[in-house]
């Protein structure tokens, strides 16, 4: 796969995805947690946007996280929540230096086009209609794994610029220097399931 001997990041050795799920409904938290666990993800659930920010260490005002070693690969959040909405949480995450590259997925029971566009424009990775199903979670997981792998290859490729890469069997056709998550997600087409 990636050029193993150039990989210097110790956290990349763990292949389990860690997902933070945010929802004010106890029933929905239980379901999303199970959906994610059955898809072999590690899950942390919180009941509000405020709690999510606390968990991420973003509840200070400067947008930088105090929790430098916290690894979160995906954030899934309900849209309609009392206090901070999912959209507001999305904005805060994208404004932070520590977590802006983490994909954020919004869930909603309401199929409101302007709402979907608003979230996608703000940088949401995807917008899921509730009730969320196993197929949705599986699709998300594949997406995240691919972007994690792409990021790790990108890091490995650029970590030692003076070395010649001898065993790069993957080739470079699938990656270019601009292939960051932020450039991939500016799509306004809504990916809602029927």
């Amino acid at each position, binding site marked *: 796969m990636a050029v193993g001997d150039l990989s210097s990041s110790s956290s990349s050795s763990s292949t389990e995805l860690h997902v933070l799920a945010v929802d004010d409904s106890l*029933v*929905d938290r239980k379901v999303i947690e199970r959906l994610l666990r059955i898809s072999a993800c590690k899950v942390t659930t919180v009941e509000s946007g405020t709690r999510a920010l606390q968990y991420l260490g973003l509840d200070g005002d400067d947008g930088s996280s105090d929790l430098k070693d916290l690894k979160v690969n995906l954030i899934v959040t309900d849209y309609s929540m009392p206090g901070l909405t999912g959209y507001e949480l999305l904005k805060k995450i994208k404004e932070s230096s520590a977590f802006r590259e983490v994909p954020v997925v919004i869930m909603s*029971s309401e199929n409101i086009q302007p709402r979907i566009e608003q979230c996608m424009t703000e940088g949401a990775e995807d917008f899921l209609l*509730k*009730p969320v199903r*196993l197929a949705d979670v599986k699709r998300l997981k594949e997406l995240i794994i691919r972007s994690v792998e792409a990021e790790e290859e990108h890091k490995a490729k650029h970590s030692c610029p003076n070395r010649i890469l001898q065993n790069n069997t993957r080739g470079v056709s699938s990656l270019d220097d601009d292939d960051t998550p932020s450039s991939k997600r500016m799509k306004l087409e809504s990916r809602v399931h029927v």
Partner: protein
Amino acid sequence: MDLVQMQKSLQDYTKSLFLEGVLDSQFLQLQQLQDESNPDFVSQVVTLFFQDSDRILNDLSLSLDQQVVDFKKVDPHVHQLKGSSSSIGAQRVKNACVVFRNFCEQQNVEACHRCLQQVKQEYYLVKNRLETLFKLEQQIVASGGMIPAMELGF
């Protein structure tokens, strides 16, 4: 009743709930998430739903009984109930909530009272049916049997 008969009863009973529209495919999704490592997943989620719903229905009754109804309080409750009923596949409760929300938007107090009665009716119905379903499952398990997987060919 022997084990095979009990299993058939359970399947027929579950099937009837789908045919009557009391449950929808989301309930099947939940059943798929249940396995040997999480054998009580469905009943756990449903129990949470019952607890949540009892509380919401109580709050709704109180809110609608006020002299001046505050729809800013009523609507979020109905939205919440709509969400949780949808998440467990309680289709008729969910549909009743959709109608209820429309009348909330119109601020029609009388219609909302009627909607609340309708939601309660559907809720007690699904509660009753699911409690029966879980009893049937328990009987099968107590007799040493396995709960048959739901066939989708109807």
